[in-house]
């Protein structure tokens, strides 16, 4: 029953444009499920990259909500959101405007369960539309707390 209700709300949001709040601020909702599986990055893989001494680290962008970023975020990540809103998408576009189109970029949100995220699909779609081909979306199944922090991956607390 619970999942039916949630699915109903999600379908309604996806089909009609979510009427409930911020996600309706001028941005088209793009489902997280629209991101091809080949373009998903598992948290363990990103954590290993960040812990390595590699000089070719990707640019990591948090494209979710400011308060959650201020509480904690991936080490060296930059804030560039929220992509579910027009204003947030503008921040993202501005941040990447001068980057070479082959730049390695990882985007993540983790605000809520993957299938409900209002930001990750929009951010991925926007970057692809801008011509970026080396973009990965960090697959955080439930939220940033359980999917990253509780696993002991590198994190910066505080904005």
């Amino acid at each position, binding site marked *: 029953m619970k999942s039916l209700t949630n699915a109903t709300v999600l379908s309604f949001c996806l089909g009609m444009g979510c009427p409930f709040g911020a996600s309706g601020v001028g941005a088209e909702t793009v489902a997280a499920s629209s991101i091809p599986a080949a373009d998903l990055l598992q948290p363990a893989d990103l954590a290993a990259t960040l812990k390595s001494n590699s000089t070719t680290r990707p640019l990591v962008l948090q494209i979710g909500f400011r308060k959650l970023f201020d509480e904690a975020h991936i080490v060296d990540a930059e804030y560039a959101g929220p992509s579910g809103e027009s204003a947030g998408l503008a921040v993202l576009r501005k941040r990447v405007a001068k980057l070479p189109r082959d730049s390695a970029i990882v985007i993540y949100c983790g605000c809520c369960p993957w299938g409900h995220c209002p930001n990750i699909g929009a951010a991925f779609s926007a970057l692809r539309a801008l011509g970026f081909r080396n973009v990965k979306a960090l697959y955080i199944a439930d*939220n940033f707390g359980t999917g990253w922090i509780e696993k002991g991956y590198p994190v910066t607390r505080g904005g």
Partner: protein
Amino acid sequence: MWHLPRVLGMTALCACLTISIVVADTPARLAGTLNTIAPDFMRTDLSGRPLQLNQFKGRVVLLNFWATWCGPCITEIPVFSRWQRRYGDAGLQVIGVSMDDDETAVKRFVAKHNISYPILMGDAKLGESFGGVFGLPQSFLIDARGRIVLRSVGEPNMEALRSQIEGLIRVH
């Protein structure tokens, strides 16, 4: 033998240092965890009324962190509103803490929906005081003595949550 007092002194010093380290570490480490007293806070709700968590001591509090952009959160809100109406006289107090960045969006949402409990704006500091609100929805069930008896991250089992609330209301 003559240096026994010095040894005892050193032992006592080490013990004190150990204790102070444990004490200093405890509040941050345990914040928001089960069976600890919920951290008190004071905010103004969206209606402009001051709200302090401790004013609800003696009642069972369901503290719900949510946001307008969070699908599972907006599924919960009508249920919590019903529970507030149904169990409010028996001692339940639901408090909604919005983690939206934009207060205007929250006010718009609240104006559209008949929410039967106070809503206030949260921030990173409030989230951190509860051990970190790193994703939504997230709820804390606090008993009449102010103790956290449930921390629910993600979509809760609503029937189990309701049963627990009913149990707490009966007890107190």
